[in-house]
């Protein structure tokens, strides 16, 4: 029983931050048809910004509870800024190109940002544990869990709900769905597609940075973080279906639970199990479990 609870909890906690990253990735793909390799760097930049700014904030003798606002602020401001720079400074010049070209361009951006991170923050790891420990710990079935992780689960559910609500219950979301369905028709109907792209990319980047900032207190923020994460995020969106936010949620849960089960039961398979599941989904449902149905022009 203890083992099952440990697996379930670890899996859900892991899935929660993975979902926030994957949601940003899948949103960008759904609207812009860009498989954004640089999304991992947005996560890493969020983590570094959060960890370093909280460090500076706490060094000033400020109360620890304020560090949550610093983390949130770092994610929103830095994520929006980096997303805006990437979209306006690079990607807008590439719209209309083949999806493979966009992968190569964003891969190049990932490599550049990885080195920019090293130039700004160096190669030493950052650890900002205070926001993580402030909320204390709870025991479930004799196992100790950080309450911060429960907050993380709550935040990811909130992000999921806001995305669903924004896409389905707001005018902007409905306009975005028109763009997703057919950007040429949307353009002829007077929808500013370029602005939609910019806003979507910035929201996606903020989600990536938010996941990074929120996980920073619980992990060691170190170089290479972005590359690690983008591979996992790809696995999630491939399993869930490219462009589907609901699919990203299910994909994150599958990846999180599979990894947790592997670590607890058969640790040798920790990495294999994630890609094993992905391969299985690709073999039987190449479009992913919840891919958005797309109209085909004939």
């Amino acid at each position, binding site marked *: 029983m203890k083992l099952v609870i440990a697996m379930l909890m670890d899996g859900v906690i892991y899935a929660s931050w993975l979902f926030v990253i994957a949601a940003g990735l899948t949103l960008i793909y759904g609207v812009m048809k860009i498989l954004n390799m640089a999304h991992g760097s947005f996560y890493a930049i969020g983590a570094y910004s959060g960890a370093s700014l909280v460090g500076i904030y706490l060094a000033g003798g400020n109360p620890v509870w304020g560090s949550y606002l610093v983390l949130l602020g770092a994610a929103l401001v830095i994520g929006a800024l980096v997303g805006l720079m990437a979209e306006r400074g690079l990607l807008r010049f590439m719209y209309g190109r083949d999806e493979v070209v966009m992968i190569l361009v964003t891969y190049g951006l990932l490599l550049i940002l990885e080195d920019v991170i090293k130039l700004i923050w160096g190669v030493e*790891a950052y650890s900002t544990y205070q926001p993580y420990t402030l909320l204390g710990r709870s025991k479930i079935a004799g196992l100790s869990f950080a309450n911060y992780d429960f907050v993380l689960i709550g935040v990811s559910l909130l992000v999921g709900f806001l995305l669903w609500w924004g896409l389905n219950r707001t005018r902007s979301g409905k306009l975005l769905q028109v763009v997703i369905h057919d950007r040429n028709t949307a353009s002829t109907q007077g929808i500013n597609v370029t602005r939609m792209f910019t806003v979507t990319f910035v929201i996606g980047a903020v989600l990536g940075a938010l996941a990074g900032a929120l996980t920073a207190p619980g992990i*060691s923020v170190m170089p290479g973080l972005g590359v690690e994460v983008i591979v996992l995020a790809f696995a999630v969106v491939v399993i869930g279906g490219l462009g589907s936010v609901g699919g990203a949620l299910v994909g994150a849960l599958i990846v999180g639970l599979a990894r947790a089960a592997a670590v607890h039961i058969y640790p040798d398979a*920790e990495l294999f199990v994630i890609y094993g599941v992905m391969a299985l989904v690709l073999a039987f449902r190449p479009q992913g479990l919840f891919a958005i149905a797309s109209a085909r022009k004939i």
Partner: protein
Amino acid sequence: MNRSMPWLLLLWGFISTGPLAYAAVELGATRQEADATVGCLFPMSGRGGLYGRDSAVGVELALEHLEQAGLKNTPRLRVLFADSKSKASRAVRQVRDFVHNEQARFICGVVNSAIALQVTQVAQDLEVFFIGTDHASSSLTGESLNEFYFRTNNDSAQSMRAGARYIREHLYPDKKGEPLRIAFIGPDYDYGYQTWKDLRSSLAREGVRYKVIKTLWPKLYEPDYTTFIRSLMSQQVDLVVNSLWGGDMVAFVQQAVRTDFFQHSRFANFDTGANYEVLSALGSELPQGLILSARHHVNWPDTKLNKWFVYRFHALTGRYPSYAAEGAYSGILAIAEALRQTGSDASNSEIRKALLGLKLHLPEDPEGFDSYMNPQDHQLQQVIAIGETLRDLRYPPAQMMLGKWQVYTPQALDTPSNLPTP
């Protein structure tokens, strides 16, 4: 696109050429006056960059020591450094460059055991000596040993043999005949697997009855150990043996200390846990009572040579050395001593013979002990000192250092423990 691309290319060029500054590091004699050239491979940038930078200072201290000692026939060494960037393909290419373009007869260094396995192959093919100074997998001195490979730092087999003896003497008798419940967590590559293999064989050799509760293999540079820590805590364990190193060891402890992990069981890392790099990075976060060791300690042994090495390093850099520095120092002394005995024009077999009979007095050697080469496995035999973490502010920024030393000489480890079987 046309307007922004040149700026992006410029930025990329700036970023990518930054680390090349280290590729040109050259110490010792000039090409014209050198008796022999040594090509050193270390990560000089990125996450492992500290190992390379400390090793370069270690080499500088070795050359200074050789000059001060002024022994007759001491060769003039030219030591080149290349940034391996912790990549095997790059390291292999650099070995070829050292040999073909710089006429290097010796290769030294290499931090990662998996990369060292590839370097040892190419060094053998090119018939140049590879003096390992900073990797520890015992497979290099075991099944992958070749006649051109020698190692001057402790290997995982030595560390685990000492670790098993420590377990036998200090942890095992408490169990009153019950098997010791052990969990192991190590990095997911050759060094991790070899360490675990060495520990098991050493425990068997010491007659310790043990039960493996769990083995975990997080990947190298894992940022999040939460699930692994919880997995270790989900079952009753007497001792967790950890073989993570560098930043991974730091990250693990930082994340574990936020839980009850260190109250759950005893914790040991017998090979790398007390590397000064780890002690300084953790500062006051490092709990007391952890059982750790390292391939060199800044506060042990309390000898004139070790004090000179540590304080001279500090005078040059403003920081205390990680064990990488002493490994590189030892490697250069080994090469110099072999060439001093044979002459720089000696054949490979003459140099090999000198290396096989090598005896050196190194900073990690306590009074009355000299490190010596084991001719069977080409591994320098050294004393292993295991200690417990205690508050000690003499070597800032570290706030915890090792104390309560248990010292194991190679001779003592070669003879069976004289403790009665529980």
